[in-house]
């Protein structure tokens, strides 16, 4: 399988603490990769380093075989990696359509094309009818869908979603899950940070488990749930009954 994204010995130190320690993660083309791990495991830092918001101390990131280590966020986005944030960052003074248009600005020639692309992306997540509303007027789940529409508009191939389902009810999470699955069928690749077991099992093809800045194991969701090291990482050693 071809690797779309590959990190090699990626390391980042905050003060005396290794937020990431020699992390090797690969994302295969057209898969949905889950990234899990306890709080402070380095999941969001990994996203921040990949997308250029934080500079890595060591190691490198390859996308499509090209070294993109240390590029600024906007360049990485234009290369084809777009991310969402843990806390939704909608542009509250702009309408939904305008929000999505921001993502489409750099890949379209003129405003007309930009607008139609944004409309298309809103429709892909099922928000076509709400395009002239403001983010303050829509529900939490629609905000999360809006965030996905925004990254779609950037023409990125790889979408990094940082807890795209946090704060949603199971039924609402299912809407996001089916949206992501539908997009995957259209050729997009995903890496998602998730916590909820139910979501992970439904959504992910493969899982990477981070703990204290290192990858401790990787495999299918069902393998991971039974893995001793994963249980230890989450619950402490005494719970890891074999």
């Amino acid at each position, binding site marked *: 399988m071809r690797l779309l994204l590959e990190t090699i010995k990626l390391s980042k130190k905050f003060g005396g603490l290794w937020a990431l320690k020699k992390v090797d993660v690969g994302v295969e083309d057209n898969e949905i990769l889950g990234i899990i791990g306890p709080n402070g495991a380095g999941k969001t830092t990994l996203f921040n380093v990949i997308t250029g918001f934080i500079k890595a101390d060591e190691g490198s990131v390859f996308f499509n075989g090209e070294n993109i280590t240390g590029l600024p966020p*906007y360049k990485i*986005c234009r290369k084809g990696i777009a991310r969402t*944030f843990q806390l939704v960052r909608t542009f509250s003074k*702009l309408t939904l359509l305008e929000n999505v248009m921001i993502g489409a600005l750099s890949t379209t020639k003129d405003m007309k094309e930009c607008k139609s692309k944004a409309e298309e992306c809103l429709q892909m997540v099922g928000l076509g009818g709400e395009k002239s509303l403001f983010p303050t007027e829509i529900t939490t789940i629609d905000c999360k869908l809006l965030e996905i529409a925004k990254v779609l508009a950037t023409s990125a191939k790889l979408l990094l979603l940082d807890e795209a389902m946090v704060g949603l009810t199971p039924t609402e999470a299912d809407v996001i899950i089916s949206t992501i699955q539908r997009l995957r069928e259209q050729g997009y690749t995903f890496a998602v940070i998730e916590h909820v077991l139910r979501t992970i099992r439904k959504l992910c093809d493969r899982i990477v488990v981070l703990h204290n800045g290192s990858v401790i194991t990787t495999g299918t969701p069902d393998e991971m749930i039974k893995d001793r090291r994963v249980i230890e990482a989450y619950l402490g050693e005494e719970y890891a009954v074999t």
Partner: protein
Amino acid sequence: MLWKLILFSAALTTVIYVTNPPPYVVHIIINIFWFAYVTSSWNIVGGFAGQVSLGHPVFIGLGAYTSTLLFMNYGLSPWLGLFCGMAAALAAAALIGVPCFRFGIRGPYFAIGTLAYTMVMEQLAMAFREVTGGGFGITLRRIDSLLYFQSADPKVYLPIILSFWIVLIYIMHRLQKFRYRLLAIRENEDAAAALGVNVFRVKLYALLISAAFSAVGGTFYAQYYRYIDPATVFGPDLALEIMLIAIFGGIYDLFGPTIGSGILIPISECLRILLGGRYFGSYLIIYGIILILCVLRLPEGITAYLSKKR
């Protein structure tokens, strides 16, 4: 858009020429559009990009002093001096913009930094008195020729400032993508960067464009009043007045500053006429109270209020 602006300006100019109102009315109208123009250029960086600048007197003052000094010392027509003023303002904008935006200085820190910039420039203009005339300022030589951006009839200045204003509004109207990038930056820089917006470059361009337009406003000011001094064109008061007008009118809208200026300038002038002579300074108190009430009732400016009502 362009035709509407031209039509409006032509109509206004015609009305003024036909009715021939007292000079004071003409002065107020020119003043309204001067502030509309200068505040609209401030709004590119202060409103759309959300980087509240108190440094615009630097650019306005450089525009005023550059064209004036070239005119007084070398006889260069201020029409040409205007471009030299723009160049000077661009350089000054790059000088403050590059370090601020490169190192992520924004919000209150950007405001403080630019305010200091204004104060430094005012002091420099005071200190180099052999060149600038220091605190005495410069009284421009009278030529009364349009070739030298002067006229004995103040009405002539109205179509001039209106054309500047049209150019500015129309350019910003056309730069739609640029405007959307600025709005995204104002809302959240990281989110904008994550969507492919080159935050540093867009902010810097905004400041450069804004500075260049402001400098033109400065040249106009010098030619219209035929007198400049450091306190009026380089002083922090001007920075505050510009900011007030923009916020009052609405910083989210292309026409917000123009509307703000159209309301505040007449209020301020009328209060000054009514109360200025008798109770010195009292008009400022009332002006301040009106401003406070407006900001409390319409925190996002008049245009935002109107567009919500619609």
